[in-house]
């Protein structure tokens, strides 16, 4: 006797439209959203930076002086790439943005590609795509088309910003140079989208695919960094990020370097598509044991399980924070010479407020500012993972059992808080190790205080995120990243232009003393903590009452 299915509903018309392109359309929708946000943030950053440069150095002479003061400084070049002709707008743009944006785009692309090619599979959605009468290879090509649309949007947004910079007063570069420059800005994203796609075929779960592609990125980034900060410039030829620098989009453009970049992307995409057809769903090419002797450590409670399931991610973030803080610490001495020179002060006016302090401390203040930014991004990322645990249905497994929502949420939040405290302290120790290796002589106590000073603003981001999670869960990530991005933009803006102090006050960074350049302001920190706590409690109360929601 056969069972009679009773679904009176028709299959959704959307799926009927063309099952073969479902995957592509679904992925395009997701990618377009994040690429638009990224594009807008990067564009605003460029616009502000460029206009403040033009405003601060209107004349040839002023620009010349800037160039002399910065030229050939190893510390800065390691971070931003070699400074060529920064007495021109185009040179300044290249130096400030090319490496930075290529790297930012690359990291975004890694995340998006592994999410698309591995995350969707982990969540069981890839199976649905394949059910739409399509082969694994065709689904992969489709997914690439979806990703490409995101990349194109990123290019368009960035190009619009660059072209408008070109129209500013005596910017001095043509539209075609601007378009080529924009292309090189998104090249990093294209390269590492392909890297992420291949890693996703190789590795059986997303976290590992992301780890592998991040490692590849780190390696190429180090190669570029060494090439730019030593005499071994030829090393640039061995890093896809170096090729982007070789394009020299704004001066003596060398478009032939597009060939290795394009080749790299095409070969990797072809490889990813080919590999997609050679493996089974839920398997990676790199053989991973499908069976394992049961390890029940850290599986005795939901909180411990979160720790176990996320330990690689958490460790990766802590390592990244330590590495960045160490690197900056090491650079403190050489970079301090520049910060100290009067001509840069308009650019770093907030830093200049503390002109009476040592230049090194000023640079370290700048360091902790960037490290805080990274730790805040970690918080936003952890909030995003918490939300996607709900959206993907993992949370159901806990909440249908005798576990209260508040206990679950407070456990998750506590873990993030601990992560933040550890990260802030690690950053202090690592920065100290870095500067101590250069015999700079700032005490570890000073740096630990500076690290601790960053805990409160970071927890405020957490509070904002939990608030969003309770009230508009779908926007959790967006609001957490938005708070960070907004604060960053406003602060950067304030370094070049006179802006309204109300506006300035909306930046979390603006509330924070730039320790160790100036003394930490603990009472402000306490206020930030209280605001964060209140927001967090409101969010938790709302979460306890609302529906669990998918995406």
């Amino acid at each position, binding site marked *: 006797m056969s069972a*009679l299915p009773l*679904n009176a*509903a028709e299959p959704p018309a959307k799926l009927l439209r063309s099952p073969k392109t479902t995957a592509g359309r679904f992925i395009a929708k997701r990618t377009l959203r994040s690429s638009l946000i990224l594009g807008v943030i990067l564009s605003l950053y460029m616009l502000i930076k460029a206009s403040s440069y033009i405003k601060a150095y209107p004349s040839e002479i002023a620009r010349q002086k800037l160039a002399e003061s910065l030229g050939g400084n190893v510390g800065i070049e390691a971070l931003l790439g070699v400074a060529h002709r920064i007495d021109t707008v185009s040179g300044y743009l290249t130096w400030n943005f090319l490496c930075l944006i290529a790297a930012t785009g690359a990291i975004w692309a890694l995340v998006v590609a592994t999410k698309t090619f591995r995350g969707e599979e982990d969540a069981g959605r890839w*199976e649905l795509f394949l059910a739409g009468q399509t082969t694994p290879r065709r689904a992969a090509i489709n997914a690439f088309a979806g990703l490409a649309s995101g990349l194109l949007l990123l290019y368009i947004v960035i190009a619009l910003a660059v072209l408008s910079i070109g129209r500013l007063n005596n910017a001095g570069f043509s539209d075609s140079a601007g378009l080529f420059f924009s292309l090189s800005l998104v090249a990093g994203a294209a390269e590492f989208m392909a890297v992420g796609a291949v890693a996703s075929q190789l590795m059986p779960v997303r976290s590992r695919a992301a780890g592998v592609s991040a490692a590849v990125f780190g390696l190429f980034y180090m190669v570029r960094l060494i090439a730019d900060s030593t005499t071994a410039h030829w090393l640039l030829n061995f890093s896809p990020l170096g090729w982007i620098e070789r394009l020299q989009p704004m001066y003596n453009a060398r478009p032939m370097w597009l060939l290795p970049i394009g080749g790299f992307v095409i070969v990797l995409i072809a490889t990813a598509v080919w590999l997609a057809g050679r493996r089974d769903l839920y398997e990676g090419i790199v053989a991973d*044991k499908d*069976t394992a*002797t049961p390890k029940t450590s850290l599986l005795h409670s939901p909180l411990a*399980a979160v720790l176990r399931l996320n330990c690689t991610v958490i460790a990766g973030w802590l390592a990244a924070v330590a590495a960045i803080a160490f690197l900056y610490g090491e650079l403190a001495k050489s970079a301090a010479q520049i910060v100290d020179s009067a001509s840069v002060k308009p650019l770093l006016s907030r830093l200049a407020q503390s002109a009476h302090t040592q230049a090194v401390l000023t640079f370290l203040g700048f360091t902790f500012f960037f490290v805080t930014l990274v730790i805040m991004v970690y918080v936003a990322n952890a909030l995003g993972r918490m939300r996607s645990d709900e959206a993907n249905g*993992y949370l159901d497994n806990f909440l249908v059992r005798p576990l*209260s929502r508040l206990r679950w949420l407070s456990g998750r939040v506590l873990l993030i808080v601990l992560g933040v405290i550890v990260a802030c302290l690690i950053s202090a120790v690592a920065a100290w190790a870095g500067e101590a290796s250069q015999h700079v002589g700032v005490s570890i106590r000073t740096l630990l205080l500076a690290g601790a000073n960053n805990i409160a603003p970071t927890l405020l981001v957490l509070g904002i995120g939990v608030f969003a999670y309770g009230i508009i869960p779908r926007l959790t990530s967006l609001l957490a990243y938005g708070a960070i991005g907004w604060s960053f933009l406003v602060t950067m803006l304030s370094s070049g232009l006179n802006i309204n102090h109300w506006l300035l006050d909306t930046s979390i960074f603006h509330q924070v003393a730039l320790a160790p350049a100036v003394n930490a302001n603990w009472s402000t920190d306490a206020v930030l903590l209280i605001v964060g706590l209140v927001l967090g409690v409101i969010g938790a109360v709302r979460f306890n009452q609302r529906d669990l929601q998918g995406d």
Partner: protein
Amino acid sequence: MDAAIKTEGLTKRYGSFVALAPLNIEVQKGEILGYLGPNGAGKTTTIRSILGLIKPSAGRAMIFGLDTQSNKVEAHQRLAYIPGESTFWPNLTGGETLYLLGKINGKIDKKYMTELIKKFQFDPTKKVRTYSKGNRQKINIIAAFMTRADLLIMDEPTSGLDPIMEQAFKECALEARANGQTIFLSSHVLEEVEALCDRIAILRSGKLVELGTLPQMRHLSALSVEATFETKPPRVDHIKGVSNVRVIGHQLTCQIRGPIEPLLAAIIAGHPKSLLSREPSLEELFLSLYGGEKINKDQPQ
């Protein structure tokens, strides 16, 4: 004595769309209640409201007298839930997953778990990402039965299982009832419900349209009548309550709702060779309820 599940005006609206109209239903201790309805009828909405995963727009649900909104944890201690599908952590093995779920539940019957693993031919050493849909569903089933909870709430529990495993599932369900456990079984597979349930509730577009035992429900449907004649069958379509008349050669089939005498008189007047009438199956019952609606034949099975 408190009912295993009791809802009082349980309602769920999404904007102006009513996914579940005020629902009043009681599931008695020790019974298996089938909760039937086509896709989109609101079965999952009902269950998620009862479990407190979504917040009812109005009304409330109680598990053994415990309000599931205000006493969620205590209520959940008395129940286990089998969802139609769920996401598990791809890099844990099946065994590790069962261990974790068991720990959250607190108390489980380890010996029974081992039995269930064997019964469902489940390999707990494999990582979750390597499991097929059916195998992932086995995790849900084993994890629920191993708790020996007083109440089992199931939302299309056999989706993805092959017929042998469906059979194993039925055995477990009947065993659970024999142990005095209560089962709330949502399904759109009639055969499963017919085989297991003491009472049946039928939900349609968010509204409870029928509730009763199978024999109580049969009256809803027409009786099927089949008669063969020496010659051409008599005309019966003018008789009140007769529908679906079909004539093939000398054979007449039709359905009758209401008093049967006028139809019988007409048939006897036509000198029948044979006469057969039977009770409707649950499928026919459903057809008569949803007769006007399209039935999607593309579903698997």
